[in-house]
């Protein structure tokens, strides 16, 4: 029953950084990992299994315990709002949640229309402010929404702001900082404490140096 510890990583850029991080922490990661089309990697020497899944699925795999640990952006964690332990800020993939739109936004007569890939977070955000909005869920190219008149505001992740700028949009408001996080299944944390703590500590050391606990 006690197989290798399973780590779910968000496919793409975050996985690349995660693999780098694990290597820096002294873990032996296969060379072909990111070029291959394989989705599961058994790393016997490290007693690890790594699965590559869509970012939004990482919290799901971890909550259900299919994966014991996961590496995923805080944006996804906020949107999915799952019951997990969030144990480490990996300090890469740094960006922010921001509201943006055309420079000369007029107050709308009706409810403000907000386009986003993060409808759940957006709903909670505006509800906490007591502002009624109409949320439009999009799956990509959010910047198009204000340009085409679909929405007057977007809530999206902003890294350098270049995409916004190139599309003639401006940031109205920064909401919060984001970065990649290490999350742990709540039961695994207890049932496999030693193995998991070893990973947390090794990664913590790389990210925060030796005084990570201070």
């Amino acid at each position, binding site marked *: 029953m006690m197989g290798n510890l399973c780590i779910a990583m968000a496919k793409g850029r975050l996985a690349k950084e995660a693999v780098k991080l694990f290597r820096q922490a002294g873990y032996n990661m296969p060379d072909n990992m990111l070029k291959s089309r394989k989705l599961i990697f058994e790393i016997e020497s490290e007693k690890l299994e790594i699965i590559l899944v869509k970012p939004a699925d990482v919290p799901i795999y971890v909550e259900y315990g299919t994966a014991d640990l996961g590496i995923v952006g805080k944006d996804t964690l906020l949107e999915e709002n799952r019951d997990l332990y*969030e144990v480490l800020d990996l300090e890469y993939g740094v960006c922010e949640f921001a509201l943006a739109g055309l420079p000369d936004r007029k107050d709308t007569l009706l409810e403000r229309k907000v386009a986003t890939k993060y409808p759940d977070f957006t709903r909670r955000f505006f509800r906490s402010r007591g502002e009624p909005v109409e949320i439009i869920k999009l799956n990509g190219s959010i910047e198009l929404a204000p340009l085409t008149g679909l929405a007057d505001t977007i809530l999206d992740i902003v890294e350098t702001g270049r995409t916004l700028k190139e599309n003639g949009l401006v940031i109205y408001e920064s909401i919060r900082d984001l970065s990649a996080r290490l999350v742990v299944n709540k*039961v695994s944390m*207890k049932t496999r404490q030693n193995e998991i703590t070893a990973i947390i500590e090794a990664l913590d050391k790389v990210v925060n140096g030796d005084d990570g606990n201070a």
Partner: protein
Amino acid sequence: MSTFVEGVRDILPAELRKRRTIYQIIREVFESSGYREVITPTLESLELYAGIEGLVDKDEMFKVVDDRGQILVLRPDLTMPIARLAASRFQNSPRPLKFSYLSSAFQSKNSQSLSLKEKTQAGVELIGSDNLESDLEMILLLIKTMEKVGVEEPLVDIGHADLINEIFSDLKINEEAKKELRKLLAAKNKIGIKNYIKKIDLADNTAEILLRLPSLFGNPQQVIKELNKMPLSAETGQVLKTLEKLFNKLTEFDSLKYITFDPMLISRHGYYTGLIFKGYARGYSNLLASGGRYDNLTEKFGVEEAAVGFALEIENLLDFLNRTGNFNEDPVQRFLLSYEKKEDFKFAYLLAEDLREAGFAAEVYNGADKEYIDFQQIDFEIYIKEKCLELKQTGGEIAVLKRNRKEALEYLILNKIEEWE
């Protein structure tokens, strides 16, 4: 028309056979410890559940309106109905009250337990007893139950509802910050805590303690030792002493090896007042049981009473046992009898009755093919011929027996079946 309802399911014979075994074991363990089973109604009044913070969200309950316009709910949990019983019908009965239950609970949203809206829970409640021994008894009973149903390495994670409150009052943290920090501590979110305490005014050692808490869990004695090193008040020390006593008792029973301690174990069920615990199996990442002390649950009915209990999550337990293959399978062997000659139906029928009498399951049917035999989970086939009986284990060899009911039965009971097992 779609007649399919999401989140509920049919339990079919193959699964039920396994469930029954588990049910039987659980019932035996509970009853033999003096916890007699009760069945409370599926429908309860909304009033019963309203106003109990943290128990079940109002919008997570299934509501039904009866013919007089009264709002009822499909019971979202099984502890409240028993608290109701204790405070009403059994108000004047001798204490402690011991009850067990095995029923389903209904919740419209449920992130655990495979998203089922109807889940089966088996549990015990001990009402009117507030000593250390009753806490101990609950934990030992949970370990025993898990072991008996086939959890080879049970784990019980223990916490205490007062601990976080005492630590907060030691650290002089205001109400708003408490709420936020409680969430962050429950998620062991060190980063969140680090960021949050930057925003509020705290003494230096307070920040240090708060940042230490998320990684403080595991080996009970070690965690207590670490906590004792912190500058905490006498009240907090008192809670720790109680827990330490419990851990010492568990050591006496050679059970501390099953125990982990998490000072920040915070239950979804806000009604817990003292001990909180959760049951796990090593290597399985879902919750198998949860329980604790809820000394103010009956307060709602005008009587305040100490109570402690736990509930096993049957669906998770089944899922776990199915993965490990460690089922204490229902031992009843299933026979299918068929006959060559029409007039042998009577012989077949009587032999089937003999087998049933001897504790086997038997059916007489002449048209069975392989698919039917698989579907009915037949273990043995008996073919009645003119001169002899052919006994065949599904997927196995054929043995030829004399055509004599008494002898055949003796043979089946004494020899072949045991040998084959």
